[in-house]
């Protein structure tokens, strides 16, 4: 077998391994980190694009995975899912660019054009409605504190409370309280809808 074939064969089980196993393997076989990238980079990229725009996503995704690689020796092998860890790193890197993030959301609020989002409707009326909604929402998000924005967008991106707590390195109770405050602020900015009752009005 050639060297290349032998090396490639070493990656054969990568898809079946959980994240912790991949990271443990990458301690001795750094190239295994590529499998972790393949697994999570799309979601991390979307998360970053949502917060800083698609242009910034490429660089920050690269930075996120390089930081993760550098710190892989510290990864807690008891945690099979590396998503909170990676989201946490990305969130802290985003935090270094908080001005860019606020500027990004303010631009959406000002123009109604969301560079991170796909066009959602062909109909002019739908597009206008969507733009109006995104403007209000972006303005509300821009008005949050960094900590509140972190919690809100991590949860909105699909992380559970416990996962968001892990990502941010804070207790789950802190996530919960920050989320409550963040949602209240956003709700007020949007006109008082009840966040705890999907589809229902808070005044009812």
């Amino acid at each position, binding site marked *: 077998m050639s060297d290349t074939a032998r090396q490639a064969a*070493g990656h054969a089980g990568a898809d079946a391994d959980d994240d912790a196993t991949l990271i443990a393997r990458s301690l001795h076989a750094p190239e295994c980190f590529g499998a972790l990238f393949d697994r999570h980079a799309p979601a991390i990229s979307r*998360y970053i694009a949502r917060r800083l725009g698609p242009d910034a996503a490429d660089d920050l995704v690269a930075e996120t995975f390089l930081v993760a690689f550098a710190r892989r020796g510290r990864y807690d092998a008891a945690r099979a899912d590396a998503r909170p860890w990676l989201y946490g790193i990305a969130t802290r890197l985003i935090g270094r660019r908080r001005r860019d993030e606020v500027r990004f959301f303010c631009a959406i609020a000002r123009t109604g054009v969301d560079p991170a989002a796909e066009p959602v409707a062909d109909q002019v009326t739908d597009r206008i409605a969507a733009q109006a909604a995104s403007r209000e929402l972006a303005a509300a998000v821009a008005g949050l504190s960094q900590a509140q924005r972190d919690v809100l967008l991590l949860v909105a991106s699909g992380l559970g409370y416990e996962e968001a707590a892990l990502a941010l390195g804070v207790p789950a109770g802190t996530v919960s309280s920050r989320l409550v405050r963040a949602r209240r602020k956003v709700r007020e900015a949007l006109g008082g809808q009840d966040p705890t009752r*999907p589809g229902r009005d808070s005044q009812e």
Partner: protein
Amino acid sequence: MNEMKQLEDMCGAVPPPDPRRLAGTRARVLTAIAEGPRPASRDARGWPWLATPAKPGRRWPGWVAPLAAAAAVAAVIAGALTVSSAIHRHRASPQASRTRGILIGVSCPGPSRCVAVGEYYQPGPPNALIERWDGYRWSIMRGPAPPAHAHADLHGISCTSASECTAVGSWTRNSRQPATLPPPTRTLVEHWNGSAWSIVKGPNLPVPSSSLSAVACTGTSGCVAVGASGNSDGLHVRTLVERWNGSQWVIVKSPDPAGAIYSFLSSISCASAWDCVAVGEYFLGGHPQVQNRVLIEHWNGFTWKVVASPEPPGSIASYLSAVSCTVESNCVAVGTKRYPHRKGDFYGGPREYTLIEHWNGSSWAIVRSLNPPGPPADGLTGVACMSAADCTAVGAGGRLTPPGSADGASTLVEHWNGSAWSIVRSPSPSANSGLSRVSCTSAADCTAVGGFGDLDNPQSPSTLVEHWNGSAWSLVTPAASK
């Protein structure tokens, strides 16, 4: 529609990244990983300044920094604080005092003579670095370059006199294969005959990668080097021992622990040509929660055997980085032990502490070692014993920080007085400093080498040399910066 749903929709409206752009980002990441500086500590996964997984073939830094720039470190080096910093490179450097690199090994055959080896980071892959202390100043030693190499590094050195040194490491030939596949790596042995360095041809097993991490010489006709060889994928890696018989290097059969998919020897010390101890680590496959374990092997003049060694109770990983033997019945090995993170302590992940083990002639036992105050991310990587009552161990005391933040570390020196280990104050030139190895010629003359860097730019470390004069450790100023 409530605001959470709107937020989820807003996040969900972000399309998947363009596969081509993502592929480009992937290539950037893997290339940066592959080309980053690889301070070849035996295994310093636990500490930030040199968190290097020991691996034959390619060595990888724990502090590969994202998108690092050279400016910050250049500013540090150019500042008032100067440390030993000289380049051995295969092409001359116009600014020897502004060296980015790290010293990994040191050997002092006498009080006025030391030679240190490591890596020099230029734009591109690292090159081997050799420095010499002549009693007055550190200076650059010019060494040979392996042919068509992409990078070369020297990890270990042993000098029996001012005119007799052997240095070992690895080199990688230029390769056009994808960055995801590490290129084959070969062992590198260089010899100093008192006037020049030359490459000594050595054997290589028919495997993709092999490297040497340490060497111990007991005379001009007796040297033993240890390391590992195996597949570049990091699995099926075996211990590697080579011996200089006076005329050539030959491979000596060495055992591996049962069930190990990876075993590596980091350091070797010989009390005589018939009594050597090598330490390192091994890794059992299939149990990610049970990581590396201590590996100790003994040479009785005829064969190498694995020696039973204690594991720190409750640890999830432990490894030995260095060993020093004064006589057959007195060896000290140092390293790192790792414990699971505490609940709610996500920032630091697992906790890491110094590990010291002692051989009394019949068995190895764990000795109580110390750790600096603060969140533990500590490790010892070098040790030098002058007697059963005088050992010096060096390493780094790390500081845990949240993910995404830069780690920090300080130099760590501990001393054994025959009854207990104590921490000795040592200077740290920056918030990210560490010592790799130490060599002593007397109780009042020790030299430790390592590196230091900028937290914001950890990919560009600078060489570090410190000296113990019997009462205090101090930074050694490089002649090149005067």
